[in-house]
């Protein structure tokens, strides 16, 4: 059974790149473009009794910020695994994500290859 990854990201091009890079892994990717949709999607999977193996979220979303999204998903499922994929190099923001419960914080500057490696590591 393929691992399910929920990507919450406001930028369409980044969604496309994530899909391209992660397509080499045996995963199913679900893309949403804002925070509320992402939370609803996660809840929807939970209700169906299906498991989202990894949530990748950006910080700057059209409605909420990624820290808030992280907190609310963990309220739904405290065992949820969340990877923050953010453009910011701000250590304070990394700390905010970690405090909210994110398992890993990765900068977009590190590139999509790095993202692929981290995802692979988390899923394994």
């Amino acid at each position: 059974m393929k691992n399910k990854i929920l990507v919450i990201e406001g930028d369409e091009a980044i969604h496309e790149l994530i899909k391209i890079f992660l397509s080499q892994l045996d995963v199913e990717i679900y893309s949403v473009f804002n925070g509320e949709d992402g939370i609803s999607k996660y809840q929807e999977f939970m209700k169906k009794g299906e498991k989202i193996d990894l949530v990748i979220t950006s910080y700057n979303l059209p409605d909420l910020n990624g820290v808030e999204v992280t907190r609310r998903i963990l309220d739904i499922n405290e065992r949820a695994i969340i990877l923050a994929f953010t453009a910011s190099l701000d250590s304070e923001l990394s700390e905010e994500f970690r405090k909210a419960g994110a398992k890993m914080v990765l900068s977009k500057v590190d590139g999509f290859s790095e993202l692929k490696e981290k995802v692979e590591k988390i899923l394994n």
Partner: protein
Amino acid sequence: MRIRLKTLIIVGGAVIVLGFIIYGVSQTVLIKGFLEIEEQMIEKDVRRAVNSLYDDIYVIDSTNYDWSAWDDTYEFIQDRNEEYIESNLINDTFVTIGVNVMLYFNSSGDLVFGKAVDIENGTEVEITEELLDYIEENEFLLNHQNVEDNISGIILLTEMPAIISSRPILTSEDEGPIRGALIMIRYIDEEEIEKLSQLTQLSIEILRYNETEFPEEEISVEPINEDYIVGYGIIPDIHGKPSLVIKVNEKRDIYQQGKTTLYYYGLSIISLGLLMAIAMVILLDKSIVSRLVKLNDNVKKIEESGDVSKRIEVQGNDEIAYLAKGINDMLESLEKSEQKIKDALNEEREFKRKTAHYFFNPICIAKGFLKIAQEEGDLKYIEKAIKAVDRIEKVVKNIVTKGEISEE
């Protein structure tokens, strides 16, 4: 050091010092006062004792006057009749009038009659040679110049001092011519001193002036120790020279009373001082110290919490209340400043995050597509990369032209 302890030390110290000063001054004033009263009382007693002796001299002299200015005596000195002797100069007469010796001298200075009686047991005794020699040596005792002339006072004899009175022998009408002198002697013996003591209710001793060292003053007082004091009164002899000293011994009741008074006074000062100190400490604590301590605790709590939005409770309308209000004003200023700093930091953070979002997002998109294009050789990814670069260009343009970060 804690302010409470400081207050206690300052108030306690001040009360102790004040207590010592008050007690010291009071001790000087009180004891001095009691000593003065004591001295005055002893002086008064000594005068009383001296006066009682002078009273005795006066009594002997008065008796002598009764006898010397009397027709019977006036006749007797001339005819020396036995009847006079048998009627008047019997032993009981001496005892009754309290005279030890009576000497009748005629105008030539010859002793016409003389008799001495021990008035204690009423028996006749011999007239001492020393007494007769003394009178002979002091002729003025016999040579009265006029009818009013008289001599009385103290004489010092070897055995004991004595009261002497010498008066001219006159008629009952106090007229002359003077037929001689009548001398009466009263020895100042133990009985006489005992009589003086009982009369004055004082412990009296009579000493010879030349046998001991005494102060020069007519009346003087000298404490012996803490319990006894003596007073001295000097009595001159018939020559006007100091002859006898009346010594009055007394217990120092007034001085002891003064010490007792001072003791209770000291106790009162200590008790009042303690009460005052306790009251002052309580009042100071209630009105100042506890409020300062509370103020300090509140400031400390705010300092420890770092929460400058907290405020201190303001009580009263005095300097401490003004201080609390001042601290609250300061906290308000700090809170505002802190908020401004927070706002500025938030703005800066948001700016940095927006900058990162609008620049790094397209950059990493461009890089991502370029990498794929490089790997797969597909030109469509280069176009996507160029689009991402265009986005960056737009952001830069907005910053330069509009002064805002956006892709719109």
